[in-house]
């Protein structure tokens, strides 16, 4: 295997089920020269914070970084849409030499004058970390000048990988939710509601879950950060429980909220029928069971009755196919393995950009012998293992899609700018439908024939 992989040092990032999973390396920097599918610290921070709808998201850095991330997520809003703009200090050569602090301060002033926001996030990029602009000081001065919150996000691109960006975002959020007044401090954990962490309201997914929970009798206080507003985030610490969907991005915040404010958290997943039902049950139980549990069962029965026959009809067409998974976080990979199983599809290759050790262990326990598990893969490896393992389909993001198609294989977008929800019962149907539309498209028949014209 080592020789076929070609890239030195990559051997330890790949294993096959049946061998020792504890040897798998993860949470390490990408290897130079590998065509890694990963992004940077700034990207990690930006994707987590960006859905906050009424905040100014100001990128302190050169234009490119802001340009590539303008309206990058499919996060929907029920109110303000300030978050859908990309603001940049557009640093030029001169600013690199003389420092960009003045420009940053002026930029904040202009934006406050134009939009009167209550909250400004200032993201640092690679060069800001190098030239040493004091983001904290500029933000602090601007905050007191305007009487609003200006929060620096320490997200210099080179200081780790995307996971470090998640942490930087969580630091910013933790700071934001800190109770400011005595009354706020007294209200910590007193509310009956819960917070929902790690849903970014892609294609309205947080709304779907909020609705399920309302039917069970659970009030959602704040979603981090899908369709969240400044005012909502400020009252986050009142909740008595945090439920967490995307652990990769939110585990750090959840545990800090637990340590500091005694708000417990539990992991949930709303991807796939089984996970959705299981999560609803566990939430109801955690909040005291009784009526809530009864309503949860009713909801599950009602929705399943509608959705299961549809899924089964897809399953009949899809059973026996093989899938490959390459996604951002380990959590998503785990849910996908289960979801594919609901469709009768076995996962034969599974990898993530930023999965953690425990997640890889869970993955290993779920998949069949012989499945390839890999961390921080590159196109050459994806190509090799998809071909070797005979995957009919790949799940991934924008960059992986053309590769799958060029290999003549089906593809499922599981990226963050999607336009259809994949969460909950409704999402499970969408997922099954998408798997069907890609795997069973007649184009593959044309693709596999027709090469005999030249003879």
């Amino acid at each position, binding site marked *: 295997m080592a020789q076929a992989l*070609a890239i*030195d040092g990559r051997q330890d990032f790949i294993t096959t089920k049946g061998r020792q999973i504890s040897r798998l390396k993860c949470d390490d920097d*990408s*290897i*130079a*020269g*590998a*065509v890694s599918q990963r*992004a*940077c*610290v700034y*990207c990690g921070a930006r994707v987590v914070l960006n859905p906050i709808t009424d905040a100014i998201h100001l990128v302190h*850095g*050169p*234009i*490119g*970084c*802001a*340009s*590539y*991330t*303008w309206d990058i997520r499919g996060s929907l809003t029920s109110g303000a849409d300030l978050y859908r*703009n*990309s*603001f*940049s*200090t*557009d*640093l030029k*050569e001169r*600013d*690199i030499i003389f420092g960009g602090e003045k*420009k940053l301060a*002026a*930029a904040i*002033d*202009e*934006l406050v004058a134009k939009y009167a926001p209550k909250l400004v996030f200032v993201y640092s990029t*690679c*060069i800001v*970390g*190098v030239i040493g602009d004091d983001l904290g000081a500029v933000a602090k001065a601007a905050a007191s000048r305007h009487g609003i919150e200006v929060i620096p996000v320490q997200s210099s*691109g*080179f*200081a*780790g990988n995307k996971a470090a960006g998640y942490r930087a975002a969580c630091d910013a959020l933790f700071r934001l939710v800190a109770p400011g007044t005595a009354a706020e401090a007294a209200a910590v954990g007193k509310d009956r509601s819960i917070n929902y962490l790690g849903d970014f309201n892609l294609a309205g997914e947080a709304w779907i879950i909020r609705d399920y929970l309302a039917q069970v009798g659970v009030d959602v206080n704040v979603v981090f950060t899908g369709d969240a507003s400044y005012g909502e985030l400020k009252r986050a610490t009142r909740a008595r429980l945090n439920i967490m969907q995307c652990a990769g991005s939110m585990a750090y915040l959840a545990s800090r909220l637990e340590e500091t404010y005694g708000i417990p958290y539990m992991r949930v997943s709303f991807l796939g029928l089984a996970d959705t039902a299981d999560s609803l049950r566990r939430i109801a139980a955690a909040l005291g069971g009784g009526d809530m549990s009864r309503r949860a069962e009713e909801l599950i029965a009602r929705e399943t009755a509608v959705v299961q026959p549809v899924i089964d009809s897809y399953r009949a067409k899809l059973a026996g196919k093989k899938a490959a998974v390459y996604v951002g976080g380990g959590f998503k990979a785990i849910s996908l393995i289960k979801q594919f199983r609901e469709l009768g599809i076995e996962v034969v290759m599974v990898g993530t950009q930023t999965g953690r050790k425990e997640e890889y262990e869970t993955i290993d326990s779920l998949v069949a012998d012989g499945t390839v598990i890999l961390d921080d893969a*590159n*196109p*050459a490896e994806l*190509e090799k293992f998809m071909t070797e393992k005979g995957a009919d389909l790949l799940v991934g*993001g*924008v*960059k992986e*899609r*053309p*590769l799958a*198609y*060029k*290999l003549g294989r089906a593809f499922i977008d599981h990226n963050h700018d999607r336009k259809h929800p994949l969460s909950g019962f409704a999402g499970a149907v969408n997922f099954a439908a998408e798997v069907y539309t890609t795997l069973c498209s007649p184009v593959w028949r044309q693709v596999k024939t027709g*090469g005999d014209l030249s003879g």
Partner: protein
Amino acid sequence: MAELKAAKSVSENPCHMCMPIGGILPLKGVEGSMVLIHGSQGCSTYMRRTIAEHFNEPVDVASSALNEKGTVYGGGENLKQALDNIRRVYNPRLIGVLTTCLAETIGEDIERLAAEYLAERGLTDLVVVPVNTPGYGGSQADGYYLALRRIVAALAVPTSRHDKINIIAANVSPADLREIKRLLVAMDIEYTLLPDFADTLDRPYAEHYTRMAPGGTPLADIRAMTGAAATIELGMTVAPAISPGQLLADEYGVALHRLPIPIGVAATDLFLRTLREITGRKAPDDLLAERGRLLDAMIDSHKHNFAGRSAIFGEPEMVYAVTRTCLENGIWPTVVAAGGAGDAAVSLFKAALAESPEPSYFLSETDFAEIRFRSAAAGVNVAIGPSDGRYLTEKEGIPLVRLGFPILDRMGGQRILSVGYTGTANLLDRITNTLLDAKHHSYRSKLYEEFYKGRRLHMAPAQAR
């Protein structure tokens, strides 16, 4: 013409990207080449995503993945390790090394590192082309031409004179590149087209996948560009210091003709006429028939087009070509925004826009907030440019004709054909039909409001009295 420069401290919704992404494209148009971005991981990932989505093609671009250590102590080791790994996986014949903001700010000397690398590994047939593309140093258009110039500089060797013509292409689509080649073949002219990503970034489906896409300008052809009969560079807006054609002229005496991208009647005529001047070959009847068909199309739609007030934005060279095409058709360019255009380009635009009987705004350094504001105020009714222009549609209801790079929200960015007589007719149809669509969509309610409902309301109080 009013000229505006945004003098703000903040860019609100950028309308250009950074230098290195521009550098990737020409490297993808050279046979057997790979690209390495020297900097932190994110830059290359963003650029890959943008390029992959525009072309719908796998775009393998490696990163030296500079981390904290590399940033403090220098990234030389990372860079060399990266080159090793690229060679193992892709076995390329040429590797372009593009810097990022980070690498430039910490002062990486990629020229020296590249030379060291080749010497240390004893490599004689691998070409490494270092290109300094700090993200803050210019826009993607600057990165595009600079990378081309460095490719030529790295490969050029003195060659005895031959009959081929060098064509240096602007950042046009693979379909456009194919059209340019078709025109040259139709005129029976031998050429070297650089870059040529007609196949590499629009690769046909094949049963067997190869990591390196077939196609691209052969290295031997690039080496021999020094002996060509002439160079035609599609780069009116390009500063001489980053022009590959200028380098061939200055150092090898190859006559340089700078032409606009052949979109529109005048620009396509000029392209063919210049080819004729250089080679003595005439355009065949087939091409003249295409010209006639374009004129026919222009007449067919001239009244509709005359109602057009356009906002044109994107890379300066494309914006220039489209501006002139709009002027030819009475689709008056009202807001023209060429992010990052230099001084020479600004005067070119001014001269072109002076032809317009209508007021126009030229924005050389700007963002979409400014373009939106100007467009709404000036009654623009059609936008022409890359995908980000959808913001104008969403906010102001101005429909967008997608053109240029990048197109991220529609299929087929790689197949948009706009050069030559046939391409121009395509482009015009797309613009005209967009105008017609808007008109047909609203004329019933508009006329009803104006001549029926409006009157009745107007008369109602009188009747009541």
